[in-house]
């Protein structure tokens, strides 16, 4: 009798452990999507050491590990942003797979020694996601460049409105426009210019 109870208890416990991990992961993902500092920190803390070890083992240095891990985190962030994200693997597995792929690509580019395959079973397919990330970061670079090209005061004005989400009266005061309508007009002119620059690059 005690044996059966013990067994039952054990099974329940395995399940609650699973549920707990699942919930934890979900909470972390949610936090990450909201750009929450603590969630990001937790993910960083739990995953960075393994990836650093992998990269150092494969001809990398600490700075390489940081760069690769940052990129992997951004890819994960983009994934959870896009809404259709479903966690099919543990965050740990996901980050490891992405980091590994990024690092191997870099090694290939640098023609350095390619590491031997290891632990393949732990790895999920991430190639497509890295590719779409590359595309996204290209687009974002383009946006950055368009903003730089536009010059002042347009750049700051648009950043204040669209990025920092400041209100028009605030912006008018900060940029020295007589009233909010003037600021708004100026913002439109800048926006049209930015769009023009952005789309001219985008179409190329």
């Amino acid at each position, binding site marked *: 009798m005690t044996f059966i109870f013990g067994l039952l208890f054990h099974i329940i416990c395995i399940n609650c452990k699973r549920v707990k991990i699942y919930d934890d992961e979900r909470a972390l993902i949610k936090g990450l999507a909201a*750009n929450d500092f603590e969630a*990001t920190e937790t993910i960083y*803390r739990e995953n960075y050491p393994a990836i*650093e070890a992998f990269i150092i083992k494969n001809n990398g*240095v600490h700075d390489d590990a940081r760069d690769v891990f*940052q990129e992997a985190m951004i890819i994960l962030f983009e994934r959870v942003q896009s809404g259709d994200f479903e966690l099919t693997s543990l965050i740990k597995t996901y980050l490891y797979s992405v980091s590994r792929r990024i690092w191997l690509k870099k090694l290939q580019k640098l023609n350095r020694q390619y590491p031997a395959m290891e632990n393949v079973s732990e790895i999920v397919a991430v190639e497509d996601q890295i590719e779409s990330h590359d595309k*996204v970061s290209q687009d974002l670079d383009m946006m950055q460049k368009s903003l730089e090209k536009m010059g002042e005061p347009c750049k700051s004005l648009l950043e204040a409105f*669209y990025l920092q989400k400041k209100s028009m009266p605030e912006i008018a005061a900060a940029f020295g426009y007589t009233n909010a309508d003037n600021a708004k007009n100026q913002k439109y002119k800048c926006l049209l210019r930015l*769009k023009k620059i952005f*789309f001219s690059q985008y179409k190329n």
Partner: protein
Amino acid sequence: MEENILLDAIERYRNGEMSSEEKTYFEDLRKQNSEIDQVAAEHLFFLNEFDKFRKVNEFKHTLNEVESKLESEGLISTNPNKGKAKIINLWTKYRRTIAVAACIAGVVSLSTASLVSRYSVNKKSEAITPLVDNKLHQMEHKINQMENKLNDATTAIAKKPKFEANFRATGFLADGSGYLITNAHVVDKAKNLIVENTKGEQFTAVPVYSNATTDLAILKITDTTFKKINSLPYTFLKATAELAEPVFTMGYPREEVVYGEGYLSAKSGFYGDTSSYQISISANPGNSGGPVINRNGEIIGIISSKETNADGVVFAVKSRNIYTALKEVRANNDIAIKLPQVNNLKGLDRVHQIKKIEDFIYKVKGN
């Protein structure tokens, strides 16, 4: 201004700031007017991109904050960038590459060691043949003697030495005051040297420079009968010649000057020797020391040897070695040799080029 209102409407629509009535009106407007719809689609796309940009930037900011927090806790290490540490990092970074390279280097040095020991003995004697004709005997010797006698009889060369040569090669003037260039292996074992031009004029010469490594030698004509030549038609190429460049040579595989054509087949010589070229040309004993000239009349090299077991594989010392040799001569012997600076051959057809050159190509004989 109309577009401003439209863009404003799109932004309010996107941010959910429209009343349901306004929203329906706006959606209907988009359906009815394709132009408005297009502007709206484009602007929404742009705003999405801008949003992504904002979010990723914000996230990067968070990431950096997390990173610096964890760094201060010591969980993340940075690269020390100074002095020794950097070298150690490089070492860790490249140690596998270095290990592989070291292995390869080891194997190569072992194999080259065996190659060198194998070939250093045989190099000159077996694998390659210096193109000095030292078989001046039998028939040819007799012909020589006859020629000499004929020369004696027909040309008015005074005091022609009674000279029994046992080898023949080629040389050419580098300085009109009487300096010739030929191969070191031509002159190294010779006691006496005689040079002879295409007119049959003979002069005694002495080596003033000889370098077995580059296989270059410089001779000085000591006879007072030699008349200084004011200008030589060719120049000497300082750079490296191009692969496949057509070249020609003149030399004395026979008693008479012989012209030959070929091309540059490799930028290095025997076993990768970078001080010489490989040239595909027909060359025979006696061609040693002959100039290799490109179509512009620039001397790019000096024929020195050929591969014994292959046809048309000839090696020529690169002309830039001449510049080095001249420097050494100036430093050690205080002799200033001036190479010709003006080229009179460029653009001429080959026959005329040869006519201008041949007077300065000498037969080098000795015993």
